[in-house]
């Protein structure tokens, strides 16, 4: 398959993830949609790496996976902390930054 097909799939996944971030209100699902967007970027990176025949793009994709894992860890820690404080798990109602 031509590389352009992979890039199209990557663009569609990124747009779907962006739509999810904008429309959903559960922070858990918003984190999942961030994963979608990061994965779309990964797919584009790997496709470009195949296009040029160099492996640097795959190294970038692995680094992106590390960053995504860190983001998930901290995000889920925040959600657990919210739940412990009996705050609503809803980003529309969480609009204050009181410590």
């Amino acid at each position, binding site marked *: *398959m*031509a*590389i352009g097909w*992979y*890039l*199209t*799939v990557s*663009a*569609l996944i*990124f*747009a*779907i*993830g*962006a*739509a*999810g971030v*904008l*429309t*959903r*209100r*559960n922070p*858990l699902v918003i*984190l*999942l*949609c961030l*994963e*979608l967007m990061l*994965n779309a970027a*990964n*797919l*584009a990176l*790997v*496709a470009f*790496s*195949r*296009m*040029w*025949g160099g492996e*640097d793009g*795959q*190294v970038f*994709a*692995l*680094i992106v996976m*590390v*960053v*995504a*894992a*860190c983001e*998930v*860890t*901290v995000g889920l*820690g*925040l*959600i*657990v*902390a919210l*739940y412990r404080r009996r705050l609503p798990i*809803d980003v*529309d109602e969480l609009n204050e930054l009181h410590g």
Partner: protein
Amino acid sequence: MSAVLFFIAAIGALTGAIGVITLRNPFYSVLALVVHLICLAVLFLLLRAEFVAAAQVVVYAGAVMVLYVFVVAYVGGGEELAGGTALRILGPLFAIGLAVELCIAMLGSALKGISSKGAPYVLGFGTPRHIGTLFLTKYLFPFEVASLLLLAAAVGAVVLARRRRGLESEDEELELRIRAPRPVYTGTMAEAAGTRAIESAAPEPEAEAEEAPEPTHTGGW
């Protein structure tokens, strides 16, 4: 053959992605994301990125998704009410515009490689050996920074999710006790240190004689 596999994997990945944002129950969203990740790993394999595909399945679809499932089970994914904000209409429109713009930007970029099948394949492209060599030579500094970032994230998650209070107040303690009654002859460190009255003392002998449970075999077979 590779075209058929590409279309199956691409449709699976897109379906999984749409499932993530449309399913109401967060638990099903996580499962849809697992499907999406596995289909994406197939796409990585088609792009000859073997190590990235393996890491995707093992790290992402394995470890990270288990973490998600745990948190969804802990928080309890309630059904989400449909919000009546303007974002619910504007969001999908924005996403469609974004997809069109990205496609125009990438496919219309006049890169020569876009319509080709990629660079000629060299033996060993994308294997762990090549990736590891790159990580330990050319990209050594990003590699070390990534390990530091992982450490910081682990410490940060523990700090964020720990219990902030020391001892619960009395009514919360009572609520906890009702939810999970503590067996007799057990105690807490607070009671042992004398900062709190002993709650689950040994029962009175009369009460014990009154109930007088017959020794029944609850264990065994």
